């Protein structure tokens, strides 16, 4: 688990597949909407992975920062689109840094509950305040061409993947993994756990917020329910665990496969069967494939070792 992943994989994904993807709007425009949806979740899952997969804190707060990013985009009409995205990411990261101080003292399952609750809380409070103070419920923002949104989110996805790879193979990443293993032990070996956790949290929030800002330009309008939708918290969890938490390729696999299935089979219909499938999938994969798709090999070898042991 701790050995380096072949760099060729990452390069392959970013350098070969990505340019192919960039040709899509000219070659197959009907595909663009689909890819925007998939890439959004690739980024969200990569961000989630930094917090949960690397650092070991079960993060269910995607909706919180996605929404913050979306609202920054809506509240900042004078800056150009891409600058707004950077601004949104930075403000989300700053919020995460500030909020992280109390939040990251919470351990284990409570952290998941706290982060999920924060999303719902912010959603309700923002909605109420909009109504009370502005006598409105939603906000308009500059709508962008779908192909521009597509290229932007593609860029963010590549950036997130490269950053995830960079983190994983750095001293910072090693520190995060040690926190995941045993936080108190890590602290005693000199790792500044508080700071590291805050950095991871901020990094996660940066990408999540940037994505929120980028994608809401597709429709030109948000309200608190659209911006802080809990799917942005819940889906990356399933995608991340299924693909393989703690790896770089895992989130891409999980997000790409699951979101593709959703778009192809459930795009025009009720999402309920898909929701059931996701639930079953996460249960089954937790029981049979605890390391996700990228960990197939080690899961298989563990399974065969166990049966061999049982037989002997």
């Amino acid at each position, binding site marked *: 688990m701790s050995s380096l992943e072949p760099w060729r994989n990452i390069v392959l994904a970013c350098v070969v597949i990505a340019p192919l993807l960039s040709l899509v709007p000219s070659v197959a425009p009907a595909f663009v909407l689909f890819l925007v949806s998939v890439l959004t979740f690739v980024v969200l899952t990569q961000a989630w992975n930094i917090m949960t997969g690397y650092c070991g804190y079960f993060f269910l707060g995607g909706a919180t920062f996605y929404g913050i990013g979306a609202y920054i985009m809506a509240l900042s009409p004078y800056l150009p689109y891409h600058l707004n995205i950077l601004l949104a990411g930075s403000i989300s990261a700053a919020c995460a840094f500030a909020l992280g101080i109390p939040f990251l003292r919470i351990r284990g399952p409570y952290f998941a509950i706290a982060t999920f609750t924060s999303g719902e809380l912010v959603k309700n409070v923002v909605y109420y305040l909009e109504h009370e103070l502005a006598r409105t*419920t939603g906000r308009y923002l500059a709508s962008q061409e779908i192909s521009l949104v597509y290229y932007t989110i593609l860029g963010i996805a590549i950036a997130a993947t490269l950053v995830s790879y960079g983190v994983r193979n750095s001293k910072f990443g090693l520190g995060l993994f040690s926190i995941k293993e045993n936080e108190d032990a890590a602290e005693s070996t000199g790792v500044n756990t508080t700071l590291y956790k805050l950095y991871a949290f901020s990094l996660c929030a940066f990408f999540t917020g940037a994505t929120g800002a980028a994608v809401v330009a597709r429709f030109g309008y948000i309200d608190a329910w659209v911006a802080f939708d809990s799917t942005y918290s819940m889906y990356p969890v399933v995608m991340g665990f299924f693909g393989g938490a703690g790896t770089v390729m895992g989130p891409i696999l999980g997000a790409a496969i699951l979101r593709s299935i959703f778009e192809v089979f459930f795009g025009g219909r009720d999402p309920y069967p898909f929701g059931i499938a996701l639930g079953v999938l996460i249960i089954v994969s937790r029981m049979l494939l605890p390391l996700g798709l990228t960990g197939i*090999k080690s899961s298989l070898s563990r399974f065969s070792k166990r049966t061999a042991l049982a037989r002997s």
Partner: protein
Amino acid sequence: MAGESVSRRRFINYGVTAVVAGVVAGVGGYYAGVASVPPPSAPTTVTVTATGPAPPTTVAPPPKREKVRIGRCISRSGALAGICVHQDRAIWLWEEQCNAKGGLNVGGQKLPVEEIVYDDRSSLDEAMKFYERLITVDKVDLLMFNYGTFMAAGLQPLMDKYKMPFVCTTSMPLPDVPTKYEFFVAPSSESHGVAMAELLSSVGAKTVGLLVIETLFGADMRKYFEAELAKKGINIVATHLYPMGVMDLSAPLLDLRAKNPDAVIQLSYPDDALLCTQQMIEINYNPKLFYSALGLLNADFTGKFGKAREGICCFGQSFVPAAKHQGVYGNARDWYEAYVKRWGAFPDYTESLNPYTGCEVLQQAVEKAGTLDGTAIRDVLARETFDTVAGPVKFGGPNGAINISDISGVGTTVQWQKQPDPITGDEFTAHVVSPSRLATAKVIYPKPPWPK
């Protein structure tokens, strides 16, 4: 051994990457295939006369359009599900009437209509995605509105971006939105506020308690009610906000009861209007005037509350199922009777009426434009006057999207009064009590007590 396991691992990693690429490519190929299917090629015909030189070959016209496809969303689940039943029925009635007469007349050709409907689950996010899908993937010819002021606001950028004329029916008009493709048939929040303020000052009411639903409809109504009440010097003693889908209003009602304003105004959606009425009865709170916005003019309400209706006021239009206003397939009375005959329940005087008049408006716009081109239809909508069962409809106002007719575009206050209704056969009649220009009866104030 180590080298072997490393290369095996690498192999698996490459394999996995290849699978991902394959999935992406495969799905992409599917979509690319869908997008790149060429339009059917036109057959060529050659006509040869018996004598003389062969005339030039003629190319047959492009394949004939066989129907008009209408795309729309509606809430079949979630908090708005109950209300949208009325809208569905109104639209289906129009579709049946239209197809019974051969369909929509598009440039001289009568084409039957067919709808594609998605359940937006009362969610703006879903509605945005489904409407985008209707436009770009299903490629429908015309769009119809779903339900809710917040939906109209949220969908506006999409409609303007894709140049799809969008007649918003069950939404309060949004005069401040710079739209070219959205049009609103319903009367404005401001006119309802004016009607209510006029009524309250005419009976000498001085204080009001507000209950407001936490949606854009509520916010919009509240803004104008506050302004109009202030103009008449009427004081708002308490305002309570509640979420869509609320399940318990007893706390705010207790507060209002303690403060005892002359009038209680609930800016509501239908479900919470029913809840509020029921809970008022439970705590035996009988304000001198009780006004609840939507949902009191249909069979659900009258069925549930029967005699308890007496004196309750609500949001209405100038619609009375009397003979006057002529629409496409008959007059107001004809529409009322056709609806009752088809659905076995009487129509909601806003939630069924507005979707139906929206259909009438769209139909006339398409027929006058002679084409299904969005921009042409939009231009017709902007300049013409349309006949509907609610009265004539004409769009104007600051952004050209508001219904400025002084009949169908005016909000009224309606009150249930204990008089037999000759048309519906009910022992109660829903009379327009304000503005005085359109009133059909005088208001009963204070409200009679709840029946035992």
